[in-house]
C-alpha cells in the first residue's frame, strides 16, 4: 500500500512540502508544475502533468467527465493514476457529519497524500421532482466554487446534489450556512432516513396519481431531524413513484417504497378513442399486448374486463384515450436492497393501498412511522430492513405491522406444511 501519512487537517502543505512540489488544491501553482521525485518508493511517475488516460477520455461524442474535471480543481492525478494502475487512489470514506449536524457529508481520505490528503463532499437535499431554476442553482455553483474544488455530482442515484472537494470543517460549515440561507439543506448520509427522491409527478406527467413532489416536501419537513441526525440500525432509503410505471424504481430498491396506484379500472373515453383510431392509432396491437387479455374492442367501443385487468399501466401508456382510474392511493413496499445476509432483494408489498390525504397524510405517516419503529426496535446493527424482515419471517413482519394479510401480500401461497402453530391458535388442547 502507499504511504501511511494520516490525514492532517489544514496543514497538509507543510507536511507534503518535504514530499513533493505542492500540487494540491490550495496552492497557487496547482496543476502547473511537475511532481519532483520524492522519497516515496512507489511514485515512479516523473512527468506529472501528462495525463494520457484522461486525455483519451476527453475525446468522443459522449459528454466527458475527464474534460469536466480539467475545468475544476479536482486532483486529476488521483484519477489518472487510478486508470494507469487500475486501482482507486482514494482511501477509506464514510458517512460523517457537517459540524452541528449528525449527517450530510462523506469524508474521504486519500491513499496518495502526496497528491491530496483527503477530499470531502456534502450532500444537498434535491428539490421535489428534481426541478431547478438557474437563479438559485447559480448560487449553489458559487458556493461549490468557493468552498469546494469546483466539481458537482448532479444528481446522485438518490437525487442529491453533491458539492465536492471540501477540505475542512470550516469549508463544510460555510457551505451549509450559505445553503441554508438559500433555502437548501444538507443531510442523507449515515444511518439516517435518507433524502426521499420522487419523480416529476403532476408537474409534468399525465400518469401522476398521488403528487409525489408535494409529498416529498411534506415528508422532508416532517422527518428532517431523522434525515440530519442518524438514529437507525442502518440507513433507511425511501423512494417514491407517482404511478406503477415506477420511474423512481421504489419497489425494487427502496427500504420503504411509496408508489401511486389506483384501485378501480382504467377510464376509457370511447369517443376520443375512436378519433385516435381513425388517425391511425393501433388499438388492436394494444389489446393483443394487454398481459391479461382484459381489453375488448368491438370497433366502436373498448371495454376493460374488471375481472382480468391488474392495472399494469400498459394501455394507459399507449392510448391517450385511456386514463388511470380515480380511486387513487399508494402502495407501501418494504425491504428492497442489494447487500447483506440475504443478498439483493426486491421490496415486498406490505400495504397494497393506503389513502394519500394532504395536508396531514395520516394513513401514510402512520404506516411509515410503524415500519421505522419496528426497524428501530428490532433491527440489528448494520442490518437493513429487508434482512431484518427475512430474519423475522415475512409473516411475523406483517403481524408486527398490524397487517391482516390478503392475496396482495402474496406472490404465491407457500408450498410446505411446516407451520408453526402458536398456542392461542390451538384452542384448548387435549393431552391424555
Amino acid at each position, binding site marked *: 500500500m502507499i504511504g501511511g501519512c494520516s490525514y492532517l487537517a489544514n496543514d497538509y502543505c507543510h507536511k507534503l512540502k518535504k514530499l513533493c512540489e505542492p500540487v494540491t488544491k490550495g496552492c497557487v501553482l496547482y496543476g502547473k508544475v511537475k511532481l519532483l521525485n520524492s522519497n516515496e518508493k512507489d511514485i515512479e511517475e516523473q512527468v506529472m502533468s501528462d495525463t494520457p488516460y484522461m486525455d483519451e477520455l476527453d475525446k468522443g461524442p*459522449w459528454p*466527458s467527465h475527464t474534460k469536466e474535471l480539467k475545468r*475544476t480543481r479536482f486532483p486529476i492525478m488521483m484519477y489518472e493514476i487510478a486508470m494507469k494502475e487500475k486501482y*482507486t487512489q482514494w482511501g477509506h470514506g464514510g458517512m460523517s457529519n457537517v459540524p452541528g449536524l449528525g449527517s450530510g457529508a462523506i469524508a474521504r481520505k486519500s491513499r496518495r497524500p502526496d497528491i491530496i490528503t483527503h477530499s470531502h463532499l456534502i450532500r444537498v437535499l434535491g428539490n421535489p421532482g428534481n426541478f431547478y431554476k438557474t437563479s438559485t442553482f447559480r448560487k449553489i455553483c458559487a458556493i461549490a466554487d468557493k468552498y469546494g474544488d469546483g466539481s458537482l455530482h448532479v444528481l446522485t442515484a438518490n437525487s442529491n446534489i453533491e458539492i465536492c472537494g471540501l477540505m475542512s470543517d470550516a469549508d463544510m460549515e460555510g457551505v451549509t450556512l450559505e445553503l441554508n440561507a438559500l433555502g437548501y439543506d444538507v443531510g442523507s448520509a449515515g444511518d439516517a432516513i435518507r433524502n426521499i427522491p420522487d419523480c416529476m409527478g403532476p408537474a409534468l406527467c399525465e400518469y401522476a396519481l398521488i403528487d409525489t413532489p408535494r409529498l416529498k*416536501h411534506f415528508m422532508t419537513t416532517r422527518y428532517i431531524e431523522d434525515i440530519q441526525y442518524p438514529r437507525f440500525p442502518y440507513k433507511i432509503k425511501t423512494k417514491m413513484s407517482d404511478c406503477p410505471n415506477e420511474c423512481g424504481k421504489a419497489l425494487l430498491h427502496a427500504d420503504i417504497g411509496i408508489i401511486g396506484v389506483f384501485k378501480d379500472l382504467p377510464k376509457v373515453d370511447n369517443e376520443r378513442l375512436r378519433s385516435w383510431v381513425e388517425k391511425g392509432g393501433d388499438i388492436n396491437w394494444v389489446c393483443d399486448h394487454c398481459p391479461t387479455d382484459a381489453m375488448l374492442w368491438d370497433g366502436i367501443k373498448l371495454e376493460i374486463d374488471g375481472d382480468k385487468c391488474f392495472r399494469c399501466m400498459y394501455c394507459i401508456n399507449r392510448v391517450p384515450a385511456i386514463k388511470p382510474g380515480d380511486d387513487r392511493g399508494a402502495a407501501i413496499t418494504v425491504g428492497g436492497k442489494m447487500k447483506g445476509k440475504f443478498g439483493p432483494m426486491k421490496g415486498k408489498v406490505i400495504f397494497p393501498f393506503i389513502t394519500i390525504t394532504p395536508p396531514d397524510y395520516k394513513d401514510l405517516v402512520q404506516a411509515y412511522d410503524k415500519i421505522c419503529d419496528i426497524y428501530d426496535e428490532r433491527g440489528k446493527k*448494520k442490518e437493513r430492513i429487508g434482512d431484518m424482515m427475512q430474519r423475522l419471517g415475512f409473516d411475523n413482519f406483517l403481524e408486527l405491522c398490524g397487517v391482516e394479510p390478503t392475496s396482495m401480500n402474496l406472490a404465491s401461497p407457500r408450498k410446505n406444511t411446516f407451520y408453526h402453530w402458536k398456542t392461542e391458535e390451538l384452542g384448548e388442547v387435549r393431552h391424555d
Partner: protein
Amino acid sequence: MINVGGVGVTPVEENISPLMLRNYGKWDTHEILRPGVIKRISQTGDECYTVRIAMPPSRISVASMLELCDLADEYSGGYFRITLRKAFEFVDVNPEKIDALIEKVEAMGFPVGGTRNSLHNIMACPAWLHCNLPATDSPGIAKALGDALIEEFKNHKLPSMLKINIAACANIEEALMGDIGIIGVHRDQPIILEDEIQRCERPTLIYICPTYAIKPKGKKGIVINPDKCIHCGACTMACEAILTGDPELDGYAVAVGGKASNTGSGPDLGSIVIPYLPNNPPRWDEAVSAVIQIMDAWRKDANPDERMKEWINRIGWDRFFKKTAIKVSIKDIDGYLYGSEFARSDLRFGW
C-alpha cells in the same frame, strides 16, 4: 453551537415555470417530437416542451453547469430539471427556439436524445473518482459505452428503451435494474492491516460478514476464511484496516433484464450472465463489446415494444445464451443463496 439544518427542501411550486404551475396535475398527453424532445399537452391546451441531454458520468464542473444555466435562461426561462437517470432536461422550452437550443447544446458537447426506444442516459457511480470500494471504474466505462453507442442515444432505432446502469461494486442495485447492468467484482481476499486492525470493533465485523468468514484471532485481531469470503466488501466499509481490491484481479460482471415497471411480466432484478471481465481502461473494450453483443442480439430478435426482460421471458434462457453467443459458466449458478430456484426444474429445452 452554530445553528444549521432544519430547513428541508423548497416547495415544487418555487422551481417550475408559471405555465407548469397553471397546468400542475392537468397534463393530458405527450408526444416525442424527435429523440430527446418531448411535447406535453395539458387539458387546458397549454403545451410544455422539454429537451433532454446526456450528462458526463458522475461529475460535472461548476463551469459547465453555469454554461447550461445560461442556455436555460435563454431558451427555457431559467427552468431545468435532472431526470431520475441523472440526465439534464431544459423544461418549458420556447418551442420556436428548440432547434437553436439543440444546435448550441450539442456544440457544447451535450448530445440531445435518450427518450423512449433509444439508449437512455448511462448511470454511473463515482468509483475511481472518489470511492475506496470500486472493483472497476463506472464513469470510464460509461464514457466508453456512450462514445460507442452515441447513435443509439440520438435515435429511436431500438425495439424498446435501453437503460444501462453501472455500479463499481455490489453496493448499488442500479446495475440489477438496468436492461443491461455492469457490476464491479472483487476476486481478491480482503487484506488486513495487522497494526491498525485493533481500532476496529471486532464484534461488529464478525457479525456483519454475511457468511461468517471473519473469526477472531488473538486478543484484538481477526482472520478471514478464504473458503467463505464472497468479496461483498461489508468488512472493508466497517473498518479502515481492511482493504479490498487488487489491480490484477478486480473486474466486473454483466447483468441483463432488470426492470422496475409493472407492464408486461412486471418488475424483477436482472440476472448476471457474464461473471467476470478484466478491467481494461481507458476504453474498456471488453465491456463495450459485451454490451454490443447483447444489444445486437436483442435488437435483431425482439418484437416492437419488447424490453430486454420481456424478450428473454419470451425466448427463454437457452435461446438467450445461444443468440448472444455468451458461454454459460459454473459461476452463473447461485452457490450463495438458497439457490434451488435458479436450477432448472423443467424439460422445456431450447436446443
